[in-house]
């Protein structure tokens, strides 16, 4: 142990490093782990839209009409579609973590199934949601 630690002064010991992302083969569970984090961060900044919307509603009909028009423009709808997808994806990913916390579905088959279901579920629920909005409008 002491022999292995002999090194030039002011240098760090050559410890083994942990393998990082690029070492691993790309898998569904890895992709959904990354997607959970990215969708969470998208929802994080999405609160700005909630604040703007509530602020406009609290400050009168003129401001509300302005913001509603902005949210209803093509770029507004694009942002809202992506944001709703992120929130739905993050919510389903959260349910996956709740199931894992009970010790269930940790085997390879269940993990893969959950990961694929998370993406399939979030995409189809987002489409369903906007179909509902489109048909209601």
């Amino acid at each position, binding site marked *: 142990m002491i022999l292995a630690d002999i090194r030039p002064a002011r240098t760090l010991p050559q410890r083994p490093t942990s393998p990082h992302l690029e070492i691993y083969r790309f898998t569904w569970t890895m992709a959904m782990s990354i997607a959970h984090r990215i969708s*969470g*961060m998208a929802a*994080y900044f999405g*609160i700005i839209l909630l*604040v703007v919307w509530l602020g406009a*509603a*609290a400050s009168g009909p003129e401001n509300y009409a302005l913001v509603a028009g902005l949210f209803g423009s093509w770029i507004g709808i694009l942002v809202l579609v992506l944001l709703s997808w992120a929130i739905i994806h993050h*919510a389903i990913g959260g349910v996956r973590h709740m199931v894992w916390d009970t010790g269930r579905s940790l085997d390879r088959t269940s993990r893969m199934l959950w990961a694929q279901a998370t993406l399939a579920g979030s995409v189809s629920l987002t489409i369903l*949601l906007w179909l509902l909005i489109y048909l209601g409008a």
Partner: protein
Amino acid sequence: MVSRTTLARVRGHGASGSGTREYWHMKVTSYALLPLTVFLIGLLVTLAGADHATVVATLSSPVFGLPLFLFILCNAVHMQVGMQNVIDDYAARGPWRKPAVLANIFFSYGASAAAAYFLLKLSLGQ
């Protein structure tokens, strides 16, 4: 010979510098946010395209205003702890850690307070 337990040696040396409190808060708020998020999406779908008077009348009702208020409260903690986790993973050391931690706290609770303030303002009278 040092009389320290192994637990005392490792305590406080994790990426976050502290224990499992944040993890627990994340779990509690995620359970609360699941039904509240379903509610919020439903509310926004109903109010899409509605005029100002309808929006104010709807949010003034406790049936819709109270769950939205709860969502804002739970989400404030959830987003703060979530971004703290990201900071712990990518900026665990270095000069940017403390500013990032502070900015996250200010943004999370600042934005949430603004949302709660506007909701109370429009539902409790202009």
